[in-house]
């Protein structure tokens, strides 16, 4: 049985560097995509991604598992994004890669699938930042509404509303 994130973080706080490596391996991809798809600039996304982990490292001494590690990690990332948006203004995401993998070998379905994913990307890009963030926290970090509210510093009603609106728009885009 795998050790929970919180246990690993406490072990890292107490000097176990290997615990951090496990923790990092679990969350690196999702956090990276969350930041990357929230921002326009890949270089900035990488900078914020690194900064989020550096903050985790530096805050280890005062880490207390009052919330899940995931919520804590994405709260840090959210704060960094808010700082970034405040500096730059609310930027819409622009996903750089259109190289979308498809499952089917059927050319028609490939085209349909490619078009569907392209629409999804465009719709995600077009979402208001708070709705996009709620959706990404749900999809990438696996947070529920309460955890999204905690990570973004909002109430549950607002988080639920943002997530619902985001999903409705994205579904509409996929089903077009």
């Amino acid at each position: 049985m795998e050790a929970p994130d919180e246990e690993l973080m406490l072990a890292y706080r107490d000097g176990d560097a290997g615990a951090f490596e496990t923790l990092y391996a679990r969350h690196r991809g999702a956090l990276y995509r969350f930041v990357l798809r929230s921002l326009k600039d890949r270089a900035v996304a990488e900078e914020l991604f690194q900064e989020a982990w550096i903050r985790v490292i530096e805050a280890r001494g005062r880490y207390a598992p009052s919330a899940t590690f995931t919520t804590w990690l994405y709260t840090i990332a959210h704060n960094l994004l808010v700082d970034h948006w405040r500096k730059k203004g609310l930027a819409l995401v622009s996903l750089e890669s259109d190289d979308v993998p498809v499952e089917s070998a059927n050319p028609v379905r490939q085209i349909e699938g490619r078009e569907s994913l392209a629409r999804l990307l465009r719709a995600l890009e077009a979402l208001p930042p708070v709705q996009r963030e709620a959706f990404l926290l749900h999809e990438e970090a696996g947070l529920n509404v309460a955890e999204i509210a905690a990570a973004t510093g909002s109430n549950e009603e607002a988080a639920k509303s943002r997530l619902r609106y985001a999903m409705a728009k994205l579904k509409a885009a996929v089903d077009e």
Partner: protein
Amino acid sequence: MSDDSKLSQRYRELPREEPPRALDDAILAASRRAVEARPAPLVVPTGRRRWYFPVAAAAVIVLAVAVVVHVEREQPDTEILAPSTTVLETPPAPAAQEPKVEEPKAEAPKRLRKQASPGFTPDPRADSAASAPAAPAPAAPPAAQAERNEAMGAVAGARESSRDERRSAQMARSSVAPSPEAELERIARLRAAGRHEEADKALAEFRKRYPDYRLSEETKAKVEKPQ
């Protein structure tokens, strides 16, 4: 399959981008460095707040330079304090240089006051501003400075010959004080002028300063009070 699940599935068909390897390495290296440098700080500067590391370093450098400069300024004054007794022992200037006999007496208290003041105002430049009320008026800086320079010169001579104290004292006397012969001549002139009281005082001072000086009979006749 619900609409939410379908959307999630479609979303997961998007490219699963991963952080570059170099980024992974940098973060993991930072995590290992942090563990090596335990204990974890309670308040750690991060991100844009890291500016204060260079500021703190600059402040330390400025402080160090200020301390060095301060210490360098302090050193000359400590040298002055040590030899002050030498200056106090400096006898009055020879009569040849001072037409009036009263002048050395007036000069002595002035020097005493000047010796007292450096103890409280180590910086010579602060003399005029911070000297005690009894200190001489700061309106005579050239004379005061000349005296100070003279004293410092004597001090320097004394310090160089500090290995042999007797020799040092002789050198200090020869460089600052008038020779015993010159002093005797001055006393003889006072005696000849009938200023016996001053001559007695000067002779007593001479004997105190040169206890081992042998007066010839001829000199005795000139400087001692006639019976």
